């Protein structure tokens, strides 16, 4: 444990003396500024207030959608009112209006000649307060900035050590593989959590489940740090490594599209860990009552597996005898 603490202090100092770390920190500040000052609190311009399926509907703010399911989804996610016309029946889908309000609404919108087969009113579960437009992006920023710091910085520290030749000195010390991997993982679990909490506090405020947030961030940061090291061991220097991680990084960003455009959700995308992390942050910051147990347990399993893979790779490729000493 002393060993890990000694390494941790060393890695922390090296991190503070690395220019890229400060670039990432400035990015964090810029993100908070963006959320507050550059993204409007209300989405302006065309905004859907009514989602309709199965009939024509004149007027502004109306979106005709392709399926009844989509109507429900929009009611749930955007807090609009929905109308489904199916087999002559008319269903009003809402997420928490009084019966009188709905009846008044129906009377208002229905042309007089509409054959009034019974109107069903389907009330979805209680919807939360609508999330201000600028804050909807916060989960994206946290999942793709704070959690990713370790992915890049651990690799950069590691490749720096490789280039300076100090790993040879480490290999002839009692240090060992596990403390080496553990100190870097721990460092970025801490740094990632501090970053993520600062971003959340500075944007959303303090009213969310902080413990769930911390668990998710620690696991996510650990996982991405370990993943970053797993990749970095295959490279000798920072420039060749960088070429290889940019595509990986882009791939990892794909779930962002699913988050903004719900129709983009190919089945494989859920396998990208940032996907579940992203939706879990959304749920923690703007709760709708979904359980996060499965996300947390899957991420735990992935993190433990990543630790073993990373330790094995570091031992094999970084810390054991080779045909030549670099």
């Amino acid at each position, binding site marked *: 444990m002393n060993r890990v603490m000694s390494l941790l202090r*060393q890695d922390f100092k090296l991190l503070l003396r690395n220019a890229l770390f400060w670039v990432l920190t400035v990015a964090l500040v810029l993100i908070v500024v963006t959320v507050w000052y550059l993204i409007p609190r209300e989405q302006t311009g065309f905004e859907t207030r009514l989602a309709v399926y199965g009939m024509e509907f004149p007027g502004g703010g109306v979106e005709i959608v392709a399926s009844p399911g989509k109507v429900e989804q929009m009611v749930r996610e955007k807090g609009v009112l929905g109308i489904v016309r199916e087999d002559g029946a008319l269903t009003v889908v809402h997420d928490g209006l009084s019966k009188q309000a709905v009846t008044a609404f129906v009377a208002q919108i229905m042309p007089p000649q509409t054959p009034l087969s019974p109107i069903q009113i389907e009330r979805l579960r209680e919807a939360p307060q609508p999330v201000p437009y600028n804050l909807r992006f916060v989960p994206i920023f946290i999942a793709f900035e704070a959690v990713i710091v370790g992915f890049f910085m651990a690799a950069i520290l590691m490749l720096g050590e490789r280039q300076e030749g*100090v790993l040879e*000195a480490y290999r002839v010390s009692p240090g060992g593989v596990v403390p080496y991997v553990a100190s870097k993982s721990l460092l970025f679990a801490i740094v990632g959590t501090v970053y993520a909490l600062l971003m959340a506090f500075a944007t959303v405020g303090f009213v969310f489940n902080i413990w769930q947030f911390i668990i998710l961030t620690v696991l996510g940061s650990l996982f991405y740090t370990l993943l970053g090291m797993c990749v970095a061991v295959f490279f000798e220097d920072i420039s060749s490594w960088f070429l290889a991680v940019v595509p990986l990084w882009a791939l990892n960003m794909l779930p962002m599209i699913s988050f903004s455009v719900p129709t983009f959700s190919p089945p494989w995308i859920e396998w990208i860990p940032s996907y579940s992390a992203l939706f879990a942050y959304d749920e923690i910051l703007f709760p709708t009552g979904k359980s996060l147990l499965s996300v947390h347990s899957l991420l735990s399993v992935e993190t433990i597996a990543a630790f073993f893979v990373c330790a094995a790779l570091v031992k094999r490729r970084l810390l054991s*005898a080779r045909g030549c000493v670099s």
Partner: protein
Amino acid sequence: MIKVEGLYHDYVGKGEYAVSDVSFTIERGEIFGFLGPNGAGKSTVQNIMTGLLDLQKGSVMYDDLSVRDLTPSFFNRVGVSFEQPNVYLRLTGLENLEHFAGLFSVPTLDPMVLLERMGLRDEARKRAGEYSKGMRQRLTLARALINQPDILFLDEPTGGLDPSAAASMRDLILEQKERGATVFLTTHNMYLAEELCDRVAFLESGRIVAMDSPSNLKLKHGQHAVSVEYADHDGLASRTFELDNEGKQAFTDFIAQVEPLTIHSQEATLEQIFIKLTGRGLTQ
């Protein structure tokens, strides 16, 4: 005891050996010198012994423990100084030592005391990136000493040092021996080897060509000579005679003819012996 036997190493995998059939033993508490010109294979042998390079052929045993089976905790007893200084350039000298010391589970020396000893006290809080090559070399050596190792590997410890720093390095290595450490000293500096080593091995093109104590090597291979300084018409002149049969006769004849001012016996240096054995010098 460290026992190295039948060591070969091929870097490229084409049957060209950087090191061939190298065998030697080092007794506990001994300073063992590995002497040879650049490219002879000295660092290769040290790196195989410390486990940095894999053991392709042959064996390296620490008492009954093979280098293949070393565990991290073994390195509590070992110190290694590298030919190329390798320290964290973004950490200060002091931080480099403090964090390295934190890896050991045996008592370690006070980093500041060690830095002072290395003449780095005033630079202790400067980043190693601002150090000269010689200062980094001294820091690398300080790091090797921090755990008071039983077994010390020193690869060209005087490389990049000025003569006075090299002299204090020599004292430092002797102190390690007095402390009871076993030292494997790799160098192409024959004076250092001559002064420090209990035994030396001459390495040339990856092979050991001679191995003994410096005095035995001189006895076996050295030619003894005398040099005579005498007064000439133009002032002071000198002449050297090798003490073989011919030379002895020439020397006595010469003495009878001139007015000798001084007569010195000359011992062969390790360098001369190396040249005699290999046909090449140590420094080229």
